[in-house]
């Protein structure tokens, strides 16, 4: 299991997770399903990276966790965005858009 991830990927994963939680609280499995479905099966998040990311985001204070009951009556840990997390999501989205459009410009340049 690679422990070090290149910063860019880590930042991107955090962005995706935050976005996935914007619609409402869900558990870890739910986050990975969401990301997979919305990206059209393109982005498949490895569990090995998902959970550490969730824990890291919680440590930063951008998401919050709570034990609850899932739809099939099983105990599950639900994550939800905090106000700080919402702010962070907006900031990271802006940043991402800036960077990606810049990269696009470079690529399109003949």
């Amino acid at each position: 299991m690679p422990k070090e991830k290149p910063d860019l990927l880590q930042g991107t994963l955090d962005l995706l997770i935050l976005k996935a939680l914007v619609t409402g609280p869900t558990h870890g499995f739910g986050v990975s399903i969401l990301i997979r479905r919305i990206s059209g099966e393109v982005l498949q998040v490895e569990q090995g990276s998902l959970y550490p990311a969730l824990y890291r985001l919680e440590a930063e204070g951008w998401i919050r966790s709570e034990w609850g009951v899932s739809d099939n009556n099983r105990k599950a840990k639900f994550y939800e965005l905090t106000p700080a997390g919402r702010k962070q999501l907006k900031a990271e989205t802006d940043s991402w858009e800036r960077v990606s459009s810049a990269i696009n410009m470079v690529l399109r340049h003949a």
Partner: protein
Amino acid sequence: MRDRYSVAAYVRRLARRIASVFTGHLADYSMSEEMRLHIELQAEEYVREGMAPAKAADRARREFGHMDGVQETCRDERGFPWFSQLMQDLRYGTRMLARAPGFTCVAVLTLALGIGVNAGIFSLMDDVLLRQLPVNDPSSLILFRWASTKDFPVPVNGSFEVDATTKLTACASFSTPVFERFKAQGRPLDGICAYCDFQRITIVADGTAETVADGELVSGDYFGVLGVPPEAGRAIEPADDVKGAQGVAMISYRYWVRRFGADPAVIGKSITVNANPVTMVGVTGKSFTGTLEVGDYPDVYLPLHLSAGMGQQGLGEMGNTAQLWWLQILARPQPGVSPSQVTAALQGILRQCASESLVANGSQLPSSQGQDLVLIASPGGQGLTEIRNQYRHQLAILVALGGSILAIACANIANLLLARGMARQREIGVRLAMGAARGRIVRQLFTESALLSILGGALAVPFALWTENAFLALHPDVEGHTLQFNVGLDGRVFAVAALIAAGTALVFGLIPALRASSVEVTAEFQGGTNNRGGGRSKLGKVFLVVQIALSLVLVVGAGLLSRTLRNLDRVDIGFDRENLVLFELDPNPSGADFDAGEKVDRAVVERLRSAPGVVSATFSKVSLLSGSGWNAMLRGKVGSATPAEFKPTMLNAVGPHFFSTYGIPILRGRELEARDEGGKTVAVINQAMARECFGDAEPVGQYLEQEDEPGHWHPILVIGVARDAGYDGLRRGSPPTIYFGFDLTRSMASAGATFAVRVSGNPAAIVPLLRASIHEAFPLLPVSHLRMQSTQIENLSGNERMFARLSLLFSMLGVGLVSLGLYGLMSYSVLRRTGEIGLRMALGATPAAMVWMVLRESLLVIAIGVGLGLACALASVRLVSSLLFGLSPTDPLSFAAGTLLLLVVGLIAAWIPAQRAARLDPMIALRTD
């Protein structure tokens, strides 16, 4: 915008990590729960997509990946992973070490010895060579010295040493006028003070007399310039150092504790110093040890102006301090002024004073000779440095010894660790297979080595103290100068021990750790230990070669030094050293009344001779073989022929019965007798002197000439020739010596004769009787420095004895470690090649041939080791050549014996386990995995 890399974010993360240290274990449980749920949900999805439930569960689990690994990664986000890993490593390391108590004990003890000895040596070096004076800002202090290219014949009380920068022979003693005029000059100096060493002072306090070894005469501003506040009371001030001022004194902290029990009421009390009444006004700071030579610790400080009443003996041979060059001068230049500017400014004054001094001493030389003097400003931060520099050599040898033993210890432990690494191949293979990173394993193994080092370092402290005490106890004297130190636990000793421990851990721990972790997992599990030993063996052999080489060097060194010691002990000293008791009487403290002092000496001798158990008694100015002496230039006058050259001669002034007491036979002529005293100058000379001055002619009845002052000499009649006897040292043999009667040397002697008493029977029983007898007749003269002549002679070779013992001890340790190492190597070799040996034996090889095959491995190691060792030994004996006596540094006997010893020990250590090869049963050997 909240940047994840900002300082605030970092602080937040840190805070959460700290918090999670306390809540961590709770989170663990929930983490596994959470992940289990994830797998279940994933499996359900697969079932929904149409997979069989069992297969779905399988796939979900596999896809999730290594749950423990994921949990690990999550945990790394919490707490301080490096810290918990370190704790883990430490716990594991401690367990592993506890499981092998034999190995751990041996390793720790070896390390403790190596680290301790080196730390002790460093502490000694620090005390002797490195430490600055415990004064305010020692680095800005200047110590003045002067050097002259031509003769400067004025009375000087001090020693000469070649100055490193100017290459001239310099002296640090100045006259009082020089000091006063320097002080009056003011300008380039911020402060200036003077001091002088003063020995053998008698202090009477509360009615009890005591002789103190060292004192210091200081100028009024001494303590002010140095900036050392007193521990109690007040310091000596400029007002105290004025002629006619009331006598004051300061005592050292050590003396205050020892003599007065640190009683504060003692301040202000009156005591007598050499019959002068003074008031004790203060105690010097706890860490202040004066500014004298290294190891001299003055116990009392007096103002300079009291020197007149102090008596002659303390100031050496010259009484009148007005013409004497006797003061050491320390100064602080003003800020921004360089030492060369200081010397430029004060040089003229020095030269003027020098010229005046020549005139005042009635010298025949032109007063312009004073113009040749050069003023040198040396760094004063360490005070006087002559004796200090002479210890350099000894300490260098000690460092070499200590370093060697540490290297041997490290090599040994490295080998042991290599072996353990081999034994743990399986365990490491498993850990690697389970996903541990190689770096992690190296770290963990290295932690074990570090643990050993820490334990070794902790135990090293008593060894360090022992080393220091051993060094001091063996009296390493330089020119009769004994070291006195505060031996003790010091932050620096600890720090050095820790540093050395860390260094050794790196050296012996890293390579075996790297080697042990380079395991190929599959090969390991296929049972491949047998064939893979090559790599370890090679490295192990390199370590062994190093060990053998170093041990050989140590053994050769021990041989050389031990033989030197034996040679010294066997020197023919020309007199009988047994049952000879020596002591001094602290004479008339003022010393001015010299006649009375000498009469007292005679009376004492007469009294002693009538005491029970005493065979004979005498006294002499110079005690034989004490390391100190007295010399002058004499020449023989054969008839009225052209006078011969003046030759350096050793002198001694002796009392009645000298030759019979010491057992020195008179070969020609007669002894000095009572009728000789008070009359013409007569003397007895020894054989060496007779040969020097008169050749084969009959010396008795001839005359010698001695120069009193430049251009003026007086004749001396030779009345007898004594057999050659030792004078001041064992190595010098018997120099040309002349013996005078005691009173005839009044103009040149200072009091303080050494009494020698030949006793019959047990000295220990008779000594108290002697003391009582003297005390009865002379209650105010304490007996001091009581010792046996044989002990005094032994002390002369204290250095050689210490080094001989140390090198013997270290070499034995080294040889012991080497044999352990060889034994281990051979055992392992046999183990490794069991299969091969079994095969060969099954094919018809004889057991003897198998032993030889195994043994061959070690022979190469021993041969290379011995060869390397011989080369190193030849190169390094230069270091000790100045200590040797009676043999050359490349003494064949020592080298041959050393080489033989190591060869024999090595062969035996290798042969015993090799025998196991012969006893192998081929059937069993072949089936061994």
